[in-house]
């Protein structure tokens, strides 16, 4: 079922890529027409509720991962940290948040320790599986726990590595594939940061 929605997302991306001409100023994949991003409330790294729709006026950048993720998540967060530095004053209008796909292990303390190591302004969000499920479905996030009997990790989470940008009006606007160059993400987020909100 999860796989199915992932395939759908892939097809959607292809379709979107095909009509890319319409918004040439963005370098990521632009979602058109922009629709309101699926709203959610999760718990942040300070233990406080974080509701997406209450962030209007801010550009919200979401990445789905987990703190024991060895490799891809640190790469994405390090990239976003570099983007924030590049953005300078425009970074004030942007809120980056890691949404944990491993609520079992990722406590708020752990998330705080993890995300703030990349950037003191980053947020780490968590919620139980029932809360997460509709969010993952809506954003087309693939996430699957996989046992690793031969590893001290016990299990890992296979997951997709997209970065999602939600504009100041609360619309999901842009999707970045894993490995999108920092300068491209920076250019797009700068445009979103300078939009009226």
């Amino acid at each position, binding site marked *: 079922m999860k796989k199915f929605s*992932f395939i759908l997302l892939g097809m959607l991306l292809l379709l979107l890529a095909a009509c890319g001409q319409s918004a040439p100023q963005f370098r990521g994949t632009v979602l058109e027409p922009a629709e309101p991003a699926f709203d959610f409330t999760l718990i942040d790294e300070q233990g406080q509720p974080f509701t997406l729709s209450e962030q209007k006026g801010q550009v919200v950048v979401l990445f789905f991962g987990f703190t*024991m993720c*060895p*490799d891809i998540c640190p790469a994405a967060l390090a990239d976003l940290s570099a983007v924030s530095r590049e953005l300078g004053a425009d970074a004030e209008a942007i809120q980056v948040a890691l949404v944990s796909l491993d609520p079992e292990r990722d406590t708020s303390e752990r998330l705080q320790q993890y995300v703030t190591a990349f950037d003191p302004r980053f947020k780490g969000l968590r919620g139980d599986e029932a809360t997460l499920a509709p969010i993952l479905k809506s954003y087309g996030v693939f996430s699957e726990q996989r046992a690793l009997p031969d590893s*001290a990790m016990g299990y890992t989470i*296979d997951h997709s590595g997209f970065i999602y940008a939600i504009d100041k009006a609360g619309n999901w606007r842009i999707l970045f594939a894993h490995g999108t160059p920092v300068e491209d993400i920076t250019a797009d987020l700068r445009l979103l940061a300078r939009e009226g909100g």
Partner: protein
Amino acid sequence: MRNTISVILLAISSLILAACGAAPTTTPAVAPATGMALEIRDAWVRPASLAAMPMEGTAESGSGHGTMEGTAESGSGHGTMDQTTEHGAMSAGTTTAGYMVIKNSGSEPDYLVAAAADIAETIELHNVLMENDVMRMRPVEKIEVPAGGEVELRPGGFHVMFIDVTRDVKEGESIPVTLTFERAGTVEVNAVVRQP
């Protein structure tokens, strides 16, 4: 005429330099005893922090006392240290990863089978398989270094995985890592701690 000579000289010196091979920034490690030369370059490790409570973030929420309350609310009440010191069958500790390029000038393939360092309780060899933008991390028993070729451990691919990191691993420091190869035996390298 002079110009021609200096161009030729430049070309010759470039060739000589090129023959020197690997980036001069890291110390090449040559495996002892067997006579098989493995050369390891560009070894690095991502920084990792065990800081139980980053203090920067607490300014808004008031005193340090406020922070402690936050800790107690969200967990067992034993405090944050449990997160990094409790070890069951399943780890929930801090992790980090190490990368390098291993070159094998010998005529037989060799295999990286283990890595050891004093910064983590468990060190494994992992690979990341990426299909349709889905990342799947998997442990591997060994990593092949092809005969007369090289293998690159890099983000999004093969890496040395440090599980349950036991101390802060700070940017700029150098971590001694002992690598064990099936044929060449052990090789010591110094991995620099840095961001990609």
